[in-house]
């Protein structure tokens, strides 16, 4: 497994336990989604992988190395993270934002080609290249954030609620891109509230309930067989199999 999370506890301050013994695995080349309601602890799990949430106990290993180790470098291991608020720099232009995604790369000669490729994937970014990023709409900012993360040439891409609050047509676009990336071989851990679409595109999904407990996991069929999951989601994911295939 590329990413293995075992019995993870995360605690904010003295009393707030955001994750209570969450375990999760992502294999190389897999598209795995983590779904659950607001406040379930999904974002916290992503943050603990990139080292911005205080891990209390449990382990996170990436490619055999302990992520919680001080020497572990998220960047050198090519883990890209798109935060929920997208983290677009509004005082920079679209182009400057994009280039910043490649700031740590040593193979400077290939960067321009990679930028071309992302501009082909997200044409709107090329159009707005020298505009201030603050002028972009929410959907455009999300595209910029994903494109910027891809310029790291990530092995593992962590997406935190990429479709939150976006128009349906943009949501479609983002899910298309996610599938496209999986086909290109990028390993993806997707955090979503949109359970239907996530289970549909993912190889496997985990369902998380507050405060940070995994209720169940698997593909649509396995999830459907799990009573707790069906109960929590409010629908049975089996129907999705027939719809999408």
């Amino acid at each position, binding site marked *: 497994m590329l990413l293995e999370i075992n019995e993870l506890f995360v605690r904010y301050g003295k009393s707030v336990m955001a994750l209570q013994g969450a375990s999760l695995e992502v294999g190389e080349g897999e598209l795995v989604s983590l779904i659950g309601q607001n406040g379930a602890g999904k974002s916290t799990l992503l943050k603990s992988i*990139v080292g*911005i949430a205080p891990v209390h106990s449990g382990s996170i290993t990436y490619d055999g190395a302990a992520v919680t180790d001080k020497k572990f470098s*998220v*960047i050198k291991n090519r883990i890209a*993270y798109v*935060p929920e608020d997208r*983290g677009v*720099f*509004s*005082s*920079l232009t679209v182009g*400057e934002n994009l*280039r*910043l*995604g490649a*700031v*740590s*790369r040593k193979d400077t000669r290939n960067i321009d080609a990679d930028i071309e490729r992302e501009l082909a994937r997200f044409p709107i970014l090329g159009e707005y290249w020298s505009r201030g990023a603050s002028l972009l709409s929410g959907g455009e900012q999300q595209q910029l954030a994903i494109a*910027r993360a891809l310029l*790291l040439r990530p092995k593992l891409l962590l997406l935190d609620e990429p479709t939150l609050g976006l128009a349906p047509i943009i949501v479609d676009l983002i899910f298309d891109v996610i599938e496209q990336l999986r086909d290109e071989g990028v390993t993806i851990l997707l955090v979503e509230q949109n359970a239907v679409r996530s289970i549909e595109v993912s190889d496997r999904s985990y369902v998380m309930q507050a405060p940070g407990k995994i209720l169940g996991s698997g593909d649509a069929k396995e999830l459907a067989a799990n009573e707790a999951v069906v109960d929590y989601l409010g629908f049975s994911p089996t129907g999705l199999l027939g719809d999408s295939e």
Partner: protein
Amino acid sequence: MILQIIVDMVGLGATYALLTIGIALLFGILGLMNFAYGEIIMIGAFAMYLFKDYPWFVGVLAAVVFAVVVSVLTERLAFRPLRNADPVTLMIASFAVSLALQSVMRMTVLPRTQGVPPQPFLTESITVFGIRVTVLQIVTLVLCGVLLGGLALLMKKTPLGVQLRASAENFQVAKSLGVKGSFVIMSAFAIAGVMAAASGVILVARQGAVSAEMGLTPLLIGIVGAVVGGMSNLKGAALGGLLLGMGTGLLEATLPTDLIAFRDAFLYSAVMVVLVIRPQGLLSGTKVRTS
């Protein structure tokens, strides 16, 4: 007469803008209101005194080296261990750094005020269209223009500049993209050091003396300018400094003589009012980072 006042105002404004930029740069990136900035200026000025018997460019070069080295050292020794502290703690820490630098200088090489005779050519003046301009004023204007322009270019056109701007806006996200936080912060301190050195050089040329306490006045000016212009926005801060300088020049030219001594009281009252009405600064559109 009016033209003469305007020329003086612009000269003072450019000098103040330089002071403000050094403060605002570090504030934007670290949330640090650096009270030790005045001492960095003093170190630069001290270099001018140390090399006063050499050609002037030796002193200027030494001023830059001294100020940059000390500025970077304060980061390494005092501010880095406090990287995650809140702005008020950082401000108190910078008080301590300021006092420490002052006392070290007073103990060792600068126990009392020392005179630095200005370069003779600086005091000469030329008259253009009936306006008397000293060479010092021209040099000041050119120096400030070159430095502010150079900084603007650096921030706009170079990768380092982009990283500095990104870090100032959101340090956490910049780091998660692979921007090297320590390198960016160190660069910011180095740039602030260059600005401080230039301010020190100008100050020495104007006052003709250096002392361990000389940093206080320029520091307070820099802070006021930054507050007025908008602390986390360099363009706003530079404009704030310029306006402050021009305002000060205007006050000096127009205030009745017995009120000039109270100039600072008026200025700081204005600062308090600005803080309440527009905490993000008069000239800045963005919200200021408060914690």
